[in-house]
C-alpha cells in the first residue's frame, strides 16, 4: 500500500465547528439537576503540620452539605509515579505523613454546599491550626545533609532521583581536547497557563459507578488513582473527558479528580468544582527549574571528545513525573551528537516548592539549553559556524548515544539541521557552512543576529515501561463499508488527535475520512489508550487503530457484519538505565529538530524580539500537515514564553506571579514576526505510516537558539532564562 489517500491531507478538524461556535462542552460548562458545588481550602503555606481543623463555624453556614478532611479519605495518598502526596492533608490520615502540607497548593479540606458562595464562605470560616516546619526552597541546599527533610518518612535524603551515565573515560577524553568550555545554566519554573483552569463534575452513573467528567491526559490512570484513594475496585470508577482546554503535561497529575469522586461517592449527588486561575497556578505542577553545570571538550577540528554534566532539578514537594522527566533530561543533555566519553549525573530533589511536573518537552528543554549553548560556545572558540560544528558531530545511524546503544534508525538530525540552515539562508561553501549576513537596523541601539540550535526527543515514556495502546474499530454496511466507528480513549487536549485518529482509521480500512466516527475518552467502554503526552499519541494510537482496522477488515472480507475488532498495540521493548553506567536501550523512537532564529536586542531597554524563526522538524510522516504546522507554531510561541517572557516569581515557596496579569504569557503582539515550518518526513520503521512524534519537538531548540542569536547580535552570552529585559541589560553590563 504505497499510495495514501487520507494520510497527508488536512481535513477540517472534527471539533472545529463546535469550538469556534462556542458549543463545545468543557468541564466548567457541565451541570446536572441537584448539583452541589465544591471549594477547596488550600494550605497557602509551604511546610507545616496540620494540628487541628475546626469546621464548627463553617458547617453552620446555610447551604453547607459536607466538609471533607484527611480522615474522610479511605486511602489518603496518590501520585502518578510514587504515591507520596495526601489527597487531603490533616490529622486522622490513613497514611503516615498525611498530616503535613509540603507546598502552598496542598489541599486541606473540600467544602461541598448547595451554592458556590456558601462553599466559599464556609471555606473561609474553617480554622486550621498549623505548626510551621523548617522548609527548604533551593534544591542545592536541599541536597545538604543537614537540610530539612520534605519526606522524612521516605528516608534521610531529599534526593529522590539520581541517574548516572558513565560512557568511555571522560578524563582521558578531556586530555584529547584542544578546547574546553565550562558553563552553568539556570532554568526557571514555567506555568502551563492552559485556557481552561481545572474543573469537573462527578456523579453516580446509571450503573452505580462514581463517574468523573474532567479534563485530563490519561483516562485510565486517572481512574486508577481515584479508585486507589477511594478504596474502590477500578470498575467502580468511570472517567470521561469532555472537551479539554489545553493540557501541555499539566493535567497528567491529579487536581480535582479524587476530591470530586470522594464527594460524589459519599454524598450520592452530583458535585461540581471550578478552580480560579489563581488556584490553578498554585495548585498544579510546573516545569522543573534546573541548574546545569557542564564541561565539554572538543578537538581543534571541532569534534567532541568528552562531556561532563551535572544536572540538579527541583522536584518540588512531590514526585509527580519527576523520575520520568529527568530520565529524558539525562538522555538529551548531551544533545543529538556523538560524544565518545560522557559522565552525567542528574538529580531530582524534593523541596517545598510547587512540584516539578510534566510540561511539553518533558525535561528536554532544560537539557537542550545547556547542550546547545555549549555547542554555540564551542563554535565561537573554534571559529566555526554553529551549523558547521553541529554537522561535524551530529549522530549518524549506528552512533551510540551516551547510554551506550545507538538511537533506533533512521537518525535524521543531519537532514534536519541542513534543512533549517538552508531555509534561513545559510550557505554551504568550501570552508563549510556559513551564516547569512544580517542587515543591522539604522538605530544604533538595536542589534540583530542569527542563532541556531538543534534538539531531539524520545517518543513515549519507555525506559523499560511497556508502551501500549488499545483501539476498537467497527465496520458497518452490507456490500460495502458505509460507516466506520472507531473507539479510542486518547485525550484530545487541543492538539487535534481525534481528527488524526479518524484519518488513520480511514486510511487503514480504505474509506473516505467523512465515513469515520470517533467514540472517545470514556473508561466505561474502552481499553487503556496510554497518555496524551511524551509526543506519543499519534504513534501509539495510530498503530492501535491501524491494527484494529486491519483486523476488522479481515473479518469484513470473511463476511462478518458488522465487522468488529479490538487491538492492543505494544511498542518495541525498551530497558531502564543500568544503575551505575546508564547503559540501556531506553526508547524505541526519537524525533529530531533544528531551529534558526533571527533575534533583535534593544541594548537600551534589554528587550529581545524574535524577527524570524525557522523550525525544521522531522515528523516521519505528517498525518495532517496543517495540524503539524499548528503544533510547530504553538510550540515555538510557548517556548518563546519560556525563553523570554514568562517570569514565575516565588518567595519562600509562595507564588507571587499567581495571576495572568503578573505571569505574562505571549499574546499575538509578542509572537515572532514570522514562523516558518519546515516539515521533514523521514519515516520511522515502526511508526504508523512512518509517523514519529511531534507535540514537544519544536519547543526544544528555541531557547538556546535565542541566546545564540543574542550572542551573535551583542557578543554576550546569557546563560539564564527567562530573558526578561532586566536580565539582558545586566548581562550587557548596563546595570549592576
Amino acid at each position: 500500500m504505497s499510495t495514501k489517500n487520507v494520510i497527508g491531507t488536512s481535513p477540517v478538524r472534527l471539533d472545529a465547528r463546535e469550538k469556534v461556535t462556542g458549543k463545545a462542552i468543557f468541564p466548567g460548562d457541565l451541570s446536572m439537576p441537584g448539583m452541589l458545588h465544591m471549594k477547596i481550602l488550600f494550605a497557602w503555606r509551604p511546610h507545616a503540620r496540620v494540628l487541628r481543623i475546626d469546621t464548627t463555624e463553617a458547617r453552620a453556614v446555610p447551604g453547607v452539605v459536607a466538609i471533607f478532611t484527611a480522615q474522610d479519605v479511605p486511602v489518603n495518598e496518590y501520585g502518578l509515579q510514587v504515591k507520596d502526596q495526601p489527597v487531603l492533608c490533616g490529622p486522622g490520615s490513613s497514611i503516615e505523613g498525611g498530616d503535613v502540607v509540603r507546598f502552598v497548593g496542598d489541599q486541606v479540606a473540600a467544602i461541598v454546599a448547595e451554592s458556590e458562595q456558601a462553599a466559599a464562605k464556609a471555606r473561609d470560616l474553617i480554622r486550621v491550626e498549623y505548626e510551621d516546619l523548617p522548609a527548604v526552597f533551593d534544591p542545592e541546599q536541599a541536597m545538604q545533609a543537614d537540610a530539612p527533610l520534605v519526606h522524612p518518612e521516605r528516608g534521610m535524603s531529599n534526593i529522590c532521583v539520581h541517574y548516572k551515565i558513565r560512557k568511555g573515560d571522560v578524563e582521558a577524553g578531556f586530555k584529547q581536547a584542544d578546547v574546553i568550555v565550562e558553563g552553568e545554566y539556570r532554568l526557571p519554573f514555567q506555568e502551563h497557563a492552559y485556557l481552561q483552569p481545572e474543573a469537573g463534575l462527578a456523579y453516580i452513573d446509571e450503573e452505580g459507578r462514581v463517574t468523573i467528567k474532567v479534563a485530563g491526559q490519561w483516562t485510565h490512570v486517572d481512574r486508577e488513582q481515584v479508585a486507589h484513594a477511594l478504596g474502590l475496585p477500578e470498575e467502580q470508577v468511570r472517567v470521561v473527558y469532555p472537551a479539554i482546554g489545553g493540557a501541555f503535561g499539566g493535567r497528567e497529575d491529579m487536581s480535582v479528580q479524587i476530591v470530586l469522586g470522594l464527594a460524589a461517592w459519599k454524598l450520592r449527588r452530583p458535585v461540581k468544582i471550578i478552580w480560579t486561575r489563581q488556584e490553578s497556578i498554585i495548585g498544579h505542577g510546573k516545569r522543573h527549574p534546573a541548574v546545569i553545570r557542564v564541561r565539554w571538550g572538543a578537538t581543534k577540528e571541532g569534534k567532541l571528545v568528552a562531556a561532563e554534566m551535572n544536572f540538579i532539578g527541583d522536584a518540588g514537594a512531590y514526585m509527580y513525573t519527576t523520575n520520568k522527566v529527568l530520565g529524558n533530561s539525562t538522555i538529551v543533555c548531551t544533545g543529538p551528537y556523538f560524544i565518545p566519553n560522557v559522565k552525567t549525573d542528574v538529580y531530582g530533589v524534593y523541596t517545598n516548592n510547587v512540584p516539578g511536573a510534566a510540561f511539553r518537552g518533558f525535561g528536554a528543554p532544560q537539557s537542550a539549553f545547556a547542550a546547545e549553548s555549549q555547542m554555540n560556545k564551542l563554535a565561537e572558540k573554534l571559529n566555526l559556524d554553529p551549523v558547521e560544528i553541529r554537522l561535524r558531530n551530529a549522530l549518524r545511524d549506528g552512533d551510540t548515544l551516551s547510554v551506550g546503544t545507538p538511537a533506533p534508525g533512521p537518525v535524521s538530525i543531519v537532514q534536519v539541521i541542513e534543512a533549517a540552515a538552508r531555509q534561513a539562508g545559510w550557505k554551504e561553501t568550501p570552508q563549510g557552512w556559513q551564516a547569512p549576513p544580517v542587515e543591522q537596523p539604522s538605530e544604533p541601539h538595536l542589534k540583530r543576529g542569527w542563532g541556531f540550535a538543534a534538539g531531539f526527543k524520545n517518543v513515549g515514556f519507555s525506559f523499560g515501561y511497556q508502551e501500549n495502546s488499545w483501539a476498537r474499530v467497527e465496520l458497518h454496511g452490507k456490500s460495502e463499508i458505509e460507516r466506520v466507528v472507531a473507539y479510542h480513549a486518547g485525550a484530545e487536549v487541543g492538539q487535534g488527535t481525534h481528527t488524526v485518529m479518524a484519518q488513520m482509521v480511514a486510511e487503514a480500512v480504505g474509506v473516505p475520512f467523512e465515513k469515520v466516527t470517533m467514540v472517545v475518552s470514556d473508561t466505561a467502554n474502552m481499553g487503556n489508550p496510554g497518555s496524551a503526552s511524551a509526543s506519543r499519541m499519534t504513534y501509539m494510537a495510530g498503530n492501535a487503530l491501524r491494527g484494529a482496522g486491519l483486523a476488522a477488515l479481515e473479518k469484513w472480507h470473511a463476511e462478518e457484519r458488522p465487522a468488529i475488532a479490538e487491538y492492543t498495540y505494544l511498542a518495541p521493548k525498551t530497558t531502564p538505565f543500568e544503575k551505575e553506567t546508564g547503559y540501556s536501550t531506553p526508547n524505541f523512537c526519537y524525533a529530531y529538530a533544528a531551529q534558526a532564529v533571527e533575534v533583535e536586542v534593544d541594548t537600551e531597554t534589554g528587550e529581545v524580539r524574535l524577527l524570524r524563526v525557522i523550525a525544521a522538524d522531522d515528523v516521519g510522516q505528517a498525518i495532517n500537515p496543517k495540524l503539524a504546522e499548528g503544533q510547530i507554531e504553538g510550540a515555538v510561541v510557548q517556548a518563546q514564553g519560556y525563553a523570554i517572557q514568562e517570569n514565575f516569581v516565588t518567595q519562600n515557596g509562595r507564588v507571587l506571579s499567581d495571576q495572568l496579569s503578573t505571569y505574562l504569557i505571549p499574546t499575538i503582539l509578542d509572537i515572532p514576526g514570522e514562523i516558518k515550518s519546515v516539515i521533514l518526513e523521514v519515516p520511522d520503521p515502526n511508526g504508523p505510516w512512518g509517523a514519529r512524534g511531534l507535540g514537544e519537538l519544536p519547543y526544544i531548540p528555541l531557547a538556546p537558539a535565542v541566546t545564540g542569536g543574542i550572542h551573535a547580535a551583542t557578543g554576550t552570552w546569557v546563560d539564564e532564562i527567562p530573558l526578561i529585559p532586566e536580565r539582558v541589560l545586566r548581562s550587557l553590563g548596563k546595570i549592576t
Partner: protein
Amino acid sequence: MLPWQIYLRPQTLAEVRQALDSAPKPVLPIAGGTDLLLDLRQGRHAPVQTLVDLTAVAEMTVIELRGEHLFIGAAVPVSRVHSDPLVARHARALTEASALIAGPQVRNVATLGGNVAHALPAADGTIALLALDTQAEIAAISGENRIVPLSQLFLGPGKSAIDKNKEIIVGFYIQVLEASEAFKVSSCFKRIMRPQGVALPIINCAIWLAREGDRIRDIRIAVGPGGPIPFRATKAEAVLRGQTPTNETIERALIALLDQVQFRTSPRRASADYRRHLVGGLFRDVIESAWERAG
C-alpha cells in the same frame, strides 16, 4: 457567582446621585469594570449590593470643547479617546497613552474615569492627564459639582481621594492653548513595556511643553511609577523652564528627576535599578519628541 445583587443603569447625573444615595448598600459606581470586576471576582474588593453603571450617562460620555478647555467625559471608552480628533489636536500625549492602555478588548470598555479612580501610580492614562495639568469634575450625592486638580485625587497606591460610595468623576478638563506667534505647545507620551501591553508598564513618561523659539517657555513632566502616587517631576521642570533643551540641560534635568523620583523594586515587574537605568533614555526620547512637535 455574582459579587453584586443589583445592577442599575442611570441615564442622567441626577439619577446617578439618586442611585448612589438610595440603592441598597454597599453601592459602587462602575464604568468599564475592567479593574473593578476583577477585584470583586478575585476577592480583593468586598462584595457589593449594588453596582451603578455610568456608561449611559450622556454628560459623561461626550468629548467636546468648552470655552478654553477640552472636556472628556469620564465614561468615554479609552478606544474612543484614542481616535478622537479633538484629543489628538489638543492632548496628543493622551491619544498616545490611550493606544497603550491594556489590550484592544479592554480599551473598548475601559474609561479614563476608572483609570484615574483606580489611583495606580503608573496608569498610562493618569500619567498623560497629569502632564496635561488636567482638572477633574467631581459629583457627589449632594451639593454642587466641584473642580479639583487631578493631582489631588491620589492618596497612595490604589487609594483614591474620591469616596467611591458617594462620589464620581464626571469628566476631565484640559486647557486648550492654541498656537500663537509667541509660542507653540505640544505633548508626548511613551512607555517601556513589551508590545502586547495588558499588564502595567515597567515605566512610562508624559511631557507637555510650550516652546518659544529655542526656549522652553513652560513644561510639565509626569513619570510612572515614580512614587506611591502619580509623580510630577517638578524639580526637573524647574531646571528646564526658560532654558534651551540642550544635551547638557536635559542631563541636568534628568539628575533632578532622579533626585526626586522614588523608584521601588516590584518583584513581579522590575527592580528600582532597572527603572533608574531606563528612565534616562525614555525621558530624553519623550522630551525630544515633544520639543520637535512644538517646532
